């Protein structure tokens, strides 16, 4: 048989009931947790005009977009993440009086990249966007929501690292050679510190700026890192502003009782150029890759016509599932139906009548659709963990006559109330 008929494309997968139930429960819980903070759910189209998505970060996203052409010849693309579509939505459907805006989403995104550790080409993102607020309070809220959601989902050992794009940008401002600045950014992004160090040493920066840049990958830990960062940032207004901003956010987050969960990491960078301020990265020792990610993006919405500051974070449900699984989390299965109903060929109408009666009384009922004999029905009920097998057999005084098939195969005649009451 042709493989394209029987296989799913690389990076895509089927989700069978057990996993699907776990996934949908997590999505539901995440939604409820986020709503408790005053966020409203939105949906955006699965596909957008290519130009709208590329508008935001052309060079990075162009490589990973699934692109196609519609019948009018317009180029469309599947959304690779949710922040850009929401930025477009906010800029075109909201006004200044609607701010601040608290929105959240749960949706599938598509990236035509090599499937990585823990990531398929189609995966589900949950995230929030807090639009219309520029100060550290909004960023601290994003950190707090991230912690509340991950904790509420049952993740026990996750940590959130806070960084700031302005720190690195401030330090490299003085690099006169644009290519060197680009190379530094690239090496830092790839976490290739060997190359990063070489580029810093070869650059035309003053010695103390070089020392600050060389220290960047080691600037992580608790709040005391900020003092070290402030010392290294001397002489760069941008970097100093970044440290002050981060310190203000960190202070609020600590006041919210998240001091144990949250750390500082000034080495965090992002491949998307729309980030403009604080950055957040969530991880857990059970996974070798990032669990959650986000930050402030004040200039993105403006590219769609109306300027609003904004901040947010997102995480992938699949990675949360993987982390929970590694942690030993076992999602209890949904409760099985309480009753399995069978009947002989001649009693089909009574079977349906009786099933409808039970369902009206709020019982979970499954009806035999394949003509099982009582023995087969018992085996099936055991397999599906259904409590009782009941056979509808004829009628008396205009009511269906029923008998329970007991686990040993014996039959117990009885009225409806007998059967339901026991």
């Amino acid at each position, binding site marked *: 048989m042709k493989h394209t008929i029987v296989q799913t494309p690389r990076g895509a997968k089927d989700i069978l009931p057990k996993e699907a139930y776990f996934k949908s429960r997590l999505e539901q819980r995440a939604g409820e947790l986020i709503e408790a903070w005053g966020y409203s759910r939105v949906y955006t189209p699965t596909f957008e005009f290519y130009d709208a998505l590329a508008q935001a970060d052309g060079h990075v996203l162009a490589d990973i977009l699934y692109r196609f052409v519609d019948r009018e010849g317009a180029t469309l693309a599947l959304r690779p993440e949710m922040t850009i579509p929401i930025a477009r939505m906010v800029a075109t459907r909201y006004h200044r009086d609607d701010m601040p805006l608290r929105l959240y989403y749960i949706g599938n995104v598509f990236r035509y990249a090599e499937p990585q550790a823990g990531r398929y080409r189609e995966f589900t993102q949950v995230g929030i966007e807090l639009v219309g607020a520029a100060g550290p309070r909004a960023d601290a809220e994003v950190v707090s929501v991230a912690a509340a959601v991950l904790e509420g989902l049952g993740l026990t050992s996750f940590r959130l690292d806070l960084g700031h794009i302005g720190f690195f940008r401030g330090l490299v401002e003085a690099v006169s050679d644009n290519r060197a600045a680009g190379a530094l950014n690239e090496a830092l992004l790839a976490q290739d510190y*060997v190359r990063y160090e070489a580029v810093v040493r070869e650059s035309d920066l003053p010695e103390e700026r070089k020392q600050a840049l060389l220290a960047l990958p080691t600037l992580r830990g608790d709040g005391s890192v900020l003092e070290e960062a402030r010392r290294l940032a001397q002489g760069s207004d941008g970097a100093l502003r970044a440290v002050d901003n981060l310190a203000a956010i960190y202070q609020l987050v600590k006041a919210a009782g998240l001091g144990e969960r949250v750390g500082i990491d000034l080495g965090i960078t992002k491949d998307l150029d729309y980030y403009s301020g604080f950055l957040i990265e969530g*991880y857990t020792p059970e996974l070798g890759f*990032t669990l959650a990610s986000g930050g402030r993006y004040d200039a993105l919405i403006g590219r769609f016509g109306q300027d609003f500051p904004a901040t947010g974070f997102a995480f992938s449900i699949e990675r949360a599932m993987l982390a929970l699984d590694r942690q030993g989390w076992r999602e209890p299965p949904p409760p099985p139906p309480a009753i399995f109903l069978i009947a002989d060929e001649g009693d089909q109408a009574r079977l349906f009548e009786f099933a409808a009666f039970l369902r009206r009384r709020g019982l979970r009922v499954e009806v035999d659709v394949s003509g099982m004999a009582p023995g087969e029905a018992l085996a099936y009920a055991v397999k599906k963990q259904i409590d009782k097998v009941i056979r509808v057999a004829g009628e008396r005084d205009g009511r269906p006559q029923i008998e329970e098939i007991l686990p040993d195969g014996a039959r117990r005649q009885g009225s409806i109330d007998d059967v339901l009451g026991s």
Partner: protein
Amino acid sequence: MGLRCAIPKGRPMEDLLPYFEALGGARAWRDVSRKLILVDEELDITFFLAKSMDVPTYVEYGAADIGIAGKDVLLEHDKRVVELLDLRLSQCELIVAVPDDSGVQKVTDLHFNSRVATKYPRVAEEFFNSKGIQVEIIPMNGSIELAPLVGLADAILDVTQTGRTLRENGLRIVGSVAKSSLRLIANPVSYKVEFARIRELVDKMRRLVEAEVQVS
């Protein structure tokens, strides 16, 4: 729990031995026999002995916190790992070579229907694309030198330390692609979770590397 470190079996491991000895460990390395996991109690590191091409994979998935891998392997596999330190060991070069009697003098002499055999198809594709040269890349698993000798390929892209194997097989270098040496790498999350321990190891190894370089 100690750090988990994936290291490449064979020659690179021999190069690494004196370094880990200088750090006060590697006693467990002497009786390697056929074991694949060595518990180094002095250093509190568990070493996984892997094939060099697989080291970045162990580290990317977090099965190992840190690892030691050749830059050539890192270039070929493009894994999400943190590259922490150039150990300047097992130094070698990725090169393009052709048979002695070939008319090709430099890489750009290769033309559109040239075939290049290599263990590094990804590196090869990027290298030739960046030079604007279209060639047919033939991925292979070993004994790359054989390919041009039997007419399978016009050139090879391979790694060489001294150039001896190339010369012995009548091959001549026409271009350099990249320099390689062993790198200390880490899983991005392990680098966060085990930050203090990994930084300490990096600093100690950096001092050894710098001392070594000054001697030679």
